[in-house]
């Protein structure tokens, strides 16, 4: 399946875009997404070592499964307040 991952802050800046599109196998997890993004967006290599994914607006860990139509985001260092 093809998914779009939203980017913000430093990650959006590094890539020069608000999202990246990645192809994943069915039954993929956030861990698989992390690996796939490393290949597609080398500019995110360092962030991908520690940044969190959000699936449908909630933080996920690498074992969280990804389904067709899920809203995905890569959340690096936030800076609210």
């Amino acid at each position, binding site marked *: 399946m093809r998914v779009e991952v939203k980017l913000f802050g430093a990650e959006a800046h590094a890539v020069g875009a608000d999202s990246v599109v990645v192809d994943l196998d069915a039954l993929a997890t956030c861990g698989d997404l992390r690996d796939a993004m490393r290949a597609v967006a080398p500019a995110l290599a360092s962030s991908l070592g520690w940044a969190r994914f959000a699936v449908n607006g*909630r933080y996920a860990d690498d074992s969280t499964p990804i389904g067709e139509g899920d809203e995905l*985001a890569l*959340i690096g260092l936030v800076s*609210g307040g």
Partner: protein
Amino acid sequence: MLTREAPITVTIVEGALGALGAPPRRPDDPGCGAWVVFEGVVREDEGGKAVEALDYTAYQPMAEDQLMLIARDVMRDHGLSYLMVEHSRGVVPVGGCSFRLSIASGHRKEALAAMDEFIDRMKRDVPIWKQPVWRM
């Protein structure tokens, strides 16, 4: 507005807080001995460089959801009575208020501890980003 029916409120508003309305009023609850309001204000410099404004991006609705989640945790862990959090999105000029946390509780210690903990967690977990608008 904080009421016994809605002890937590979370709001993300466009621009500086309080540009329009007044700050929240202390709840009229005779069990609350402490009322603390914290305001985060845009400073004139970031890392020694002159700033004109900060431009905030929030990933919504996740940002509100995370604020609500932290509010509920902190409320329960510290036994608070009321908690109101307001955060800006978009451009907030120097001297403008971009974040306000208001807490009412029985006593002081838990209100101040809750305030510190809320802000620490917000700065780690709430998907909001700021971008300086540098002064020319």
